């Protein structure tokens, strides 16, 4: 029997070892991949970087939903693509029959609140750290991170307040579902919150991206915060603030207008338009060498892809993208032909692309046939400001030939021309016609190709009276920023929307979009009554 006893010992030893002493250890398994807690010191920085990531990838910042709200809603841009693609967007954005529950408006809302939560969480992380380590000196990098988070928080809320008016205000991390049961906060309060965030951002952000180190071109600067802040005052018609902040940006000496308008959009290999001197803030995207066959180097954005020429019945060479956000006949017909920007902004089907002088590549665009694009293209015009997507050099570099991707194009969010025109507009409103005239001239002269005084095209507009100058500035914004997503909100803030957009179906209530029903449903309290209320006009 002895050997039996021995075997028992052995068997039970196995059990005992694994069963008790080893048990806890055996059961404690953590992911074999980093979690938030593993990041330790890098946590705040990495959370802030996530905001840039969202800016590049989230639909509400970088793709169709952003374009729907900002550009397609205006009179100068249409949905584009072809007749059967995205017909609902025509209903929702071109004819102002806003939807309370559809993918684009839902995505737009969700993208912004995702950004807001990300900023709230990052700021909370900073607060936790400073409470946990009271004596520790706060590093400059930490300050910068807070500045960035505050900028993004202000940016998201500014977009929301423009789009929806009163919206729920979250300035704290959402922990329990109950935290999300919040009604709309007044626009005034939202603007106050934006001001407080931008004040922090202006104070903490560096003057130049280089201050982050050499590897961060395009990273947020004080200039971006001041420009955004100026925009928020522009919408509130606080002209003195606009003048003060735009002057702040101008006097920083960091920015200048590029001499050639079409250079702004050159975003291909060595493209001079990427993070140029005129750029104040752009959502950064990068598509590396051979990305078509190597996902690992694709860090692109849908921004460029969604606006490229759509192939339809044309040859394979014209499979550039999805073809959304195209110029309308109205823009084309009202824009004087002698403005060189026109042919640098509108790409004409069935015509030569104008070659490098006009932002082209020496190609001829296939002809428009019909709205289905049978045997040709389905649109007459395309947004040429993203035509760098057809760059042969970049297509060779990335391997994206005929594959409908132009992910490398940066979304220009803030540019210096806007600072100049905001200063012109605010000065004019304050009765400073001279400043208005001088700044307007900066933009017009550049548009002409820098021909200076006495030129025949895009001539200088001298100040006559405030109303004349106001109209000149409105027109200038329309041409300078065509297809960039300024038009709808400009019309609304000028109270011109009813006049310009009314024929398309716009009514006054359409200045604000209804809050997505899903967001309202999500705040149903125990009684079943949602806490979040709909925009009263919807």
């Amino acid at each position: 029997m002895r050997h039996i006893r021995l075997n028992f010992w052995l068997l039970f030893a196995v059990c005992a070892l694994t069963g008790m002493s080893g048990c806890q250890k055996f059961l404690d398994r953590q992911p074999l991949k980093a979690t938030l807690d593993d990041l330790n010191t890098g946590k705040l920085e990495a959370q802030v970087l996530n905001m840039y990531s969202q800016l590049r990838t989230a639909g509400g910042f970088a793709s169709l939903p952003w374009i729907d709200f900002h550009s397609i809603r205006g009179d100068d841009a249409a949905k584009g693509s072809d007749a059967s693609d995205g017909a609902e967007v025509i209903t929702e954005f071109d004819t102002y029959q806003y939807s309370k529950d559809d993918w684009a408006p839902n995505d737009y809302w969700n993208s912004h609140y995702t950004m807001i939560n990300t900023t709230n969480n990052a700021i909370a992380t900073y607060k936790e750290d400073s409470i946990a380590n009271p004596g520790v000196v706060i590093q400059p990098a930490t300050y910068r991170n807070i500045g960035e988070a505050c900028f993004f928080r202000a940016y998201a809320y500014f977009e929301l307040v423009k789009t929806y008016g009163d919206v729920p205000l979250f300035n704290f991390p959402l922990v329990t579902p109950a935290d999300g049961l919040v009604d709309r906060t007044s626009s005034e309060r939202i603007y106050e919150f934006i001001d407080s965030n931008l004040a922090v951002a202006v104070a903490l952000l560096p003057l130049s991206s280089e201050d982050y180190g050499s590897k961060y071109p395009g990273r947020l600067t004080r200039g971006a915060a001041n420009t955004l802040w100026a925009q928020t005052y522009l919408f509130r018609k606080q002209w003195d603030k606009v003048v003060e902040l735009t002057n702040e940006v101008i006097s920083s000496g960091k920015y200048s207008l590029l001499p050639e308008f079409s250079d702004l959009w050159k975003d291909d290999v060595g493209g001079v338009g990427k993070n140029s001197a005129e750029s104040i803030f752009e959502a950064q995207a990068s598509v590396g060498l051979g990305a078509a066959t190597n996902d690992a180097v694709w860090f692109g954005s849908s921004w460029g892809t969604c606006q490229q020429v759509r192939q339809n019945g044309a040859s394979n060479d014209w499979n550039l993208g999805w073809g959304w956000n195209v110029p309308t006949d109205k823009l084309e017909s009202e824009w004087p032909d002698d403005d060189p920007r026109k042919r640098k902004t509108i790409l004409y089907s069935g015509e030569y692309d104008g070659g490098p002088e006009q932002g082209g590549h020496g190609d001829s665009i296939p002809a428009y046939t019909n709205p289905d694009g049978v045997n040709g293209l389905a649109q007459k015009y395309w947004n040429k400001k993203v035509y760098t997507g057809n760059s042969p050099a970049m297509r060779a570099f990335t391997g994206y030939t005929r594959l409908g991707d132009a992910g490398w194009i940066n979304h220009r969010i803030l540019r210096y021309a806007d600072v100049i025109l905001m200063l012109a507009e605010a000065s004019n409103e304050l009765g400073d016609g001279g400043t208005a005239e001088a700044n307007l001239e900066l933009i017009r002269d550049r548009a002409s190709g820098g021909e200076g005084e006495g030129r025949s095209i895009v001539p200088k507009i001298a100040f006559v009276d405030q109303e004349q100058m106001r109209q000149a500035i409105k027109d200038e914004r329309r041409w300078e920023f065509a297809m960039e997503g300024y038009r709808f909100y400009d019309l609304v803030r000028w109270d011109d929307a009813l006049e310009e957009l009314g024929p398309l179906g716009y009514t006054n209530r359409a200045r604000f979009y209804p809050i997505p029903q899903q967001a309202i449903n999500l705040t149903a309290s125990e009684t079943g009554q949602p806490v979040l209320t709909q925009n009263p006009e919807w």
Partner: protein
Amino acid sequence: MKLRRPGLDRPDRTGLRQLLRVARLSAFIFLTASIQATAHNYFPAYDYQQQAAPITGVVMSAAGEPVSAVSVTVKGSSTGTSTDVTGNFSLNAPAGATLVFSSVGFLEQEFKTTGPGPIKITLQPSNNTMDEVVVIGYGVANKRDLTGSIVKIEGKQVADKPNTNPVTSLAGKVSGLSVIPNATPGKAPDIRIRGTVSIGAVTPLYVVDGILQDNIDYINPNDIESIEVLKDPSSLAIFGVRGATGVIAITTKRAKSGQTVVNFNTTYGFKKLVDKIKLVDAAGFEKLFAQERLNNGITDPFDYSGLTANTDWIDEVTRKAQFSASNLSVSSSTQKNKFNFGLGYTLDEGIIKHEKLQRFLLSVSDEVKLNDAFKMGFNLNVSRQNNPYTLNVDAANILDDARKPIPQISPGTKNFFVRDPYGSEFDSIYVDAYSRLEEGLQGSGVVNPLFKVENEWDKTINIEYRTVGSVFAEVNFLKHFNFRSSVYADISNINKRQYFPLYYGYNPRTDVPSLVTQTSKVLEDDETYRKFQQDHVLNYKNDFGDHALTLTGGFTTYYFGYTKRSSVGSQAGDIPIPDDERFWYVTSGFEDQANTSASSGQRENTTVSYLARALYNYKGKYFLNASFRNDASSRIPKVNRNQQFYAIGAAWEISKEGFMDQQHLFDFLKLKASYGKLGNQSAFKSLDNTPLDYPSYPTLVTGNTAAAIFGTNVFNVADAEYIANPDLKWETVTAYEGGVEFAAFGNRLNGEVNYFVKETNDMMTYISRASLGLKDKLVNGGSIRNQGVEVSLNWSQQFSKDWSFNIGGNITFLKNKVLKLSEDIPTGLLIRANQNNGAAESRTTAGHPIASFFGYEVEGIYQDQADIDKSPEYTGGEAYGPGDFKFKDLNGDGVVNKDDRTFIGNPTPDFTYGASAMLSYKMLSLSIDITGVSGNEIFRTWGSLESPFQRVNYAADKLGAWSGPGTSNTIPKLSQGSRVNYNGSTYNIESGSYLRIRNIQLSYGLPTQLLSRAKIKALRVFLNVQNLKTFKNNLGYSPEFTGDATSFGYDFAGGAIPVVGTAGINVTF
């Protein structure tokens, strides 16, 4: 205890003291210890000193056939053997001993020996499945002693069926078991036991010879001795956190005592696509496309110049496929040693060209009895499998691709003199190129499927190696105790290499060739699974007069580990990676080093469990079963890490009562009931069941969408994948069952009726608060109830010595209902949106069956403007006009919009059934199996909900589409622009009821007298036809569609189930 031999008391007690001491030392508490009664190991150990002499004999059936594998034991001892294929046996037994003969399908018989002389036993048939020994988890038991519902299927029922996955052969055989086959060779069917119990995992647990598995790819169907399906709480609670979805237990063959058997069998046959979906031909396309253009105001005819073919694309990608399986097994057994060896090869081609599975299987096991108390052994299964294409792209996708091109495109190749894509710019070659599609018409999302099938499918190497092994040691002691320790390991590796060649396609209109692919590329995936399990089980079994008790206690741990390395190498430059298998590696010397990348994925999880079970009966009439398991899982946050599961059951064998002696109807009658709490280990990241191994530690999102870019510099970002839930626990299923089992009319009729309820609680529900900008979170909320009735009946009739007949059937009525979802989901909805911006929608919500289809109710088609004017306005978003769907204003608010959508179908059948009949004449038998379901709906997405970006060929039913007032009130006008018709609606819903002739088999066994001269013990030949005919009501290939818990029953134009005809031979030496 009174039977204990005095002389053995002392060592026994020592052993017990040791045992207790060890148990104390290790603080390892077996509150209940028991003996697990296997037919082989239970018999008490210490009788061997008794005098014994050899007894020989033969066992025959009433029909005069020798009966093999009959267990022959000496009553009251551990001595036993079994009969060989000729029915002969030999064993040592003391004079005057009583021999007990038992075998499945026969009544147990005792024989009191009088001397050594050869004896002849004739067994009487029994249809009473109660006599079976069944696997119950951590042991086996006589089915008679149990209070639950376990169905046993003999291995031979699956061995000769042309299915590489043996579980597929169970379709329609077992009540409560739903099997939806997958036509891709080797791919597991969609299996659910007693309904869809969760929104997460719904597939059952497999237990192969004690090893817990989630698939059984490595098992040779020919090595299977039996398959048991465990359905009820009293059988499942012992599996704790993995019990809720039911268990399929597989027992592989072991050598039978006292014989050496060599078996060889081979099967060969063909597969053919049937019930092909109907599409229009070239003329039909021209007609319908012109009609569609007219609907959109285009009157000029489409130019078909150069497009002259009339191709049936489905025919072009499919073929008549082969199936072949060959197996050799050798088993040899002596009193001390049982050895088993098996070798198998399977070739299983899919009906899609080039789709091929090859599997080599090797199994070896040995069991050594060191002495009467001690036994040990090992078991090893090794398999090598060449998987068809990549497993993620299967037949269904290619069939879907093949329905799309217009028939006018030629399927053939044309020869062109072109630049050699692999050579320098001066090298030219002749190539055979397939046609491109008409770019203007089908440029987006539609390709010639032959590009893929003919150029890429044979350039993938996908090899899976798997080694599953176990060792065990078992000891009998103290007469009533048995202890068994087993250690299992399952290591597998899947290596996939896929090469993307450079090839040409030509423009069908201009005949100009151009490269379809520009870059040569190699993808390499290397996956390794590591699973370890150890079981230590103590059994105690004893009779106390009228009381019989079996106690089991055990301890088990499980480890699961997985790593995956993926890498890609490509070359877009002038010297591509050659189309030569030698170079299909990421680092081949041809790759562009700057464009080579790698990534990995890895996870692991563990469980530690204690289990206990008691089986008790009084006088063999009153039965009580109880079981308990504590599972601690690494995947659950520490506070809830330990969860307990249990079941109790009771049964009453009424037929043993005295008052039943008076009646002659029932030979056996048993009432049973059980109740228990089972667990479902299912944690997932999203509704489509991405597994979640660390619910309490959200990892960071990585990849292209989670990176900050500055210029061309890329930085990782911190973005947690979801919100962790510190209170998470496993969902539980509270199940109960009541039933009756019976045999009547002289055991000719036997059957079973069960009523069951399974209520899932604390369901792991996936909540999305994206509108607040929050990530998803898993919470315990929600309940689902599955309830149903299972009936199975079987009638056997022996007409004469030569003729016998057997007919059986089963039917399962099932009702699935979501009782509630978590309160954290204010919408109370879980939505799965498929196809075309989610138009094909499934909703899981309280008060409705899980995954119910949702959409508009179609009232008809607007015939003209007057019709539109008098109907409620449609404000759902899309423009509409005559020829478009008229949706019902369900809420009566005068307008039709999204609020008028409703539940339009249930993918779960009201009842499922199967039946089989067998007629035998001497050694010839003919059997037929049917299966069917009734009362469910199918959501067809093809021919109705295609993406607006894609022009696809028309389904044939579109010939009846609306083309003017009065032309159709069911099929809307043809127009891709009329998006209103692309909403999910009752137009997409079809009846899922069907009846299928699942299997017909004719088999003939050659007479043994004839064979014995050739030294062959048995020889059987058979012909088999599977899926001969399906009577169905839908337009798809098949009425059955696989899916997951919250999205199933969708017809995405795949799911073709071929008819398979095979012939086979089985020889035993």
